[in-house]
């Protein structure tokens, strides 16, 4: 069981690291839409790795099935929520910061 413990340890730690990276990204990114990209690292790799790590700990039990259902819930709802958020932002006139041809981010002309 020590192998499983080490694997869980690695997976959960890696998931935590990706959550922190996503959070740092949300602070570093310049505008609304680019911040959403940083946040999507959290609910894909971050949450995913943590759930897989916890499934290894609980083995073949109901808890594992619940964790799988939790994963599926995130898998289906997070893109829907992200899309709704981005769509609402655009509809209400949030201007995405777009890169010009030199590759530097600059404000977009409407």
């Amino acid at each position, binding site marked *: 069981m020590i192998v499983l413990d080490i694997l869980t340890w690695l997976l959960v730690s890696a998931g935590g690291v*990706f959550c922190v*990276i996503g959070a*740092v990204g949300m602070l570093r990114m310049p505008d609304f839409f680019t911040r959403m*990209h940083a946040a999507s690292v959290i609910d894909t790799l971050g949450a995913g790795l943590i759930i897989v790590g916890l499934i290894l700990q609980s083995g073949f039990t109901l808890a594992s099935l619940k964790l799988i259902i939790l994963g599926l819930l995130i898998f289906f709802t997070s*893109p*829907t929520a*992200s899309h709704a958020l981005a769509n609402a932002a655009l509809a209400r006139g949030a201007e995405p910061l*777009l*890169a010009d041809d030199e590759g530097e981010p600059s404000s977009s002309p409407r």
Partner: protein
Amino acid sequence: MSPYRSISVIATLFLFWVVMSGYFTPFLLTMGLVSAGAVLWFAHRMDVMDHEGHPIHLGKNAFTYWPWLLKEIVKSAWDVSRIIVSPALPISPTMVRVKTTQKTPVGQVTYANSITLTPGTISVAISGDEILVHALTREGAQGVADGDMDRRVTAFEGLS
């Protein structure tokens, strides 16, 4: 409504109930089955139990599409993470319109959700057969415009 779909709905609901409850006494199992039956009846009366509400026909294709999608998610999440931790923050945010080739709303939603689920690209708006995509980098936008995912979702949809 096919009886096959009803059986699948009731089985899914009951399985979900069992997993959530974790009790296996005959009384509670019967209650669960009755609840699943009641929900099936409600869903039938509300007419929401069609190919969109319970798309069982996509079941077998999911086993080939989801692993590929998972691989793409991990790859692009890694790319976005590298961009975030890089001191220069090498982003080039881009908006692109991409054509979709899916025939059904379920297929289009699958494609739009797949784009959003992949870090670095978000589907912002859908109109007709076009999706407006916001990408974190120019390469990411190019990747969506290449249409590999579009072709795979259309294959997943399994009509053409």
